[in-house]
């Protein structure tokens, strides 16, 4: 199976073409380039490196969030449009799960993204027989709550991934012995994304595929906080 995989959920960009576990092409950038500018040319270059046409691809894989709202949207829009327009299967993988793919064996992996003000996007994954299993679902959470929630685990088995210096300091206060991989050392890798996507279930309805933001917009949050309700069924967008 030939998989085209890409991630732009945060600053780094990673694109890969993988066939049955073999990496045919891999483009990475950790620089702060504009993903909207580079993603399509990088996909084009990757396919050229792999000597494939985009029509040869059997499956499209994308990291679908959480992350930078704009960053995630760029990759998700390209992925869903490509899958739709070429009628190819599409797989969305959690951007946190992709970070967890950097973690060690027999550990509880805690991929993190700094969401500022002592908040993080985080989840907990176990690595069982080389398969990542989600044990605490991805969420937007205060660091205090996250670290409390991890009390049930053996500190020596915890491995935090993609921690900024700020998050590292907070983790160290409570878990001085836990393993921490810094954000500088944990770049999302699209070859791993392809591997995760190989056995995942493709999305059933490509039109409805959207990023996993894990947060309402501020405007919506404030609107609901004022006591507004919708029945969850209302369509806010109408064809005219």
């Amino acid at each position: 199976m030939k998989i085209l995989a890409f991630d732009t959920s945060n600053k780094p960009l990673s694109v890969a073409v993988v066939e049955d576990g073999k990496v045919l092409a891999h483009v990475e950038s950790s620089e702060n380039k504009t993903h909207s500018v580079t993603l399509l040319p990088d996909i084009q270059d990757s396919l050229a490196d792999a000597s494939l046409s985009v029509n040869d691809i059997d499956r499209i894989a994308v990291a679908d969030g959480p992350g930078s709202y704009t960053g995630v949207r760029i990759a998700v829009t390209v992925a869903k449009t490509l899958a739709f327009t070429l009628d190819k299967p599409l797989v969305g993988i959690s951007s946190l799960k992709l970070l967890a793919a950097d973690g060690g064996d027999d550990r509880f992996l805690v991929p993190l993204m700094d969401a500022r003000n002592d908040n993080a996007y985080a989840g907990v994954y176990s690595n069982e027989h080389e398969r990542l299993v989600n044990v605490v679902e991805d969420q937007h959470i205060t660091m205090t709550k996250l670290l409390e929630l991890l009390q049930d685990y053996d500190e020596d088995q915890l491995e935090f991934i993609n921690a900024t210096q700020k998050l590292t300091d907070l983790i160290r206060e409570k878990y001085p012995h836990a393993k921490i991989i810094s954000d500088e050392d944990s770049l999302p890798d699209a070859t791993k994304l392809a591997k995760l996507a190989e056995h995942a279930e493709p999305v059933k309805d490509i039109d409805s595929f959207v990023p996993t933001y894990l947060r309402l917009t501020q405007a919506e949050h404030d609107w609901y906080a004022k006591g507004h309700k919708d029945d969850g069924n209302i369509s806010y967008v109408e064809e005219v």
Partner: protein
Amino acid sequence: MKKDTLIMSFESSCDETSVAIIKNGKEILSNIIATQIKSHQRFGGVVPEVASRHHVEEITRCIELAMDEAAVTYDDIDAVAVTYGPGLVGSLLIGIMAAKTVAFAHNLPLIKVNHLAGHIYSANFVTDLQYPFMALLVSGGHTELVLVTAPGEFHTLGDTRDDAVGEAYDKIGRVLGINYPAGKQVDQMAAVGNDVFNFPRAMVQEDNLDFSFSGLKSAFINRVHHADQVHEDLSKDDLAASFQGAVLDILSNKTFRALKQHPVSQLVVAGGVAANQGLRKRLKEEIEKRNMDMELVFPPLRLCGDNAAMIGAIAQIQYEKGDFADLSLNSDPSLDF
């Protein structure tokens, strides 16, 4: 016989996701528009992050509907066009990424379109444009007088120095208790009210073609606040008529000043505010009063708001010129002519 050109066009610069299939820049085979107005009405105006999220939800559905309605396949399409500015950056990016992806996947040329040029070329669906022609572009984000000297050649003669005219409608609408977008209702109220408040007509004496609406907006708000303080009951219809009266005087004054400097045979009025019935009537009357031999072109209401059909119309001209973009195309949120 010359082969027909079919362009698939994308527009997502603000709160409408739209995909169209346009034949030869003249014929609309489909023009799917998904509007987010209901969503943003919760907040009293467009919230950029909410808009971006809706665009991702709608984008492939719009492509599918556009192709189905036009009954075309990718083999029939000659090029892909997309609005790359001006507009909200997050919104623009969804249309741009989708358009680039379709162009890449099907090996089609990509055309980057200026949203303002698109609005002006919505007139291409109702008449044969005669160059040079004058365009009055009036919307929630823009108020400009543009001289179009040749296909795709734009010269801005005047611009707003502060608020766009549609923006002023929304702001005074809020004071009248009308939710965004307020233009249509203010227009209806103005039709029954009387212009009795004598709001200022900014810059009409000045010998330039620029506009200003913030003074008018402030005068309006001050008048209403003063009435509230002294418990004076003002007619909302009269307030609307007085506001619109000032707006129409300003737009008309500057437009005919421009037409005097640059005599042309067509005046195109485009953008969301071109749907305003008061404006339509006023410009028609002014032309008749002056005995001008000039065609007044208003796009149909559906093409006044943001839509992808208009993007396909101007894209045809760029297609013929060979004016193509590549896959590194980015948004330009403050793009102008």
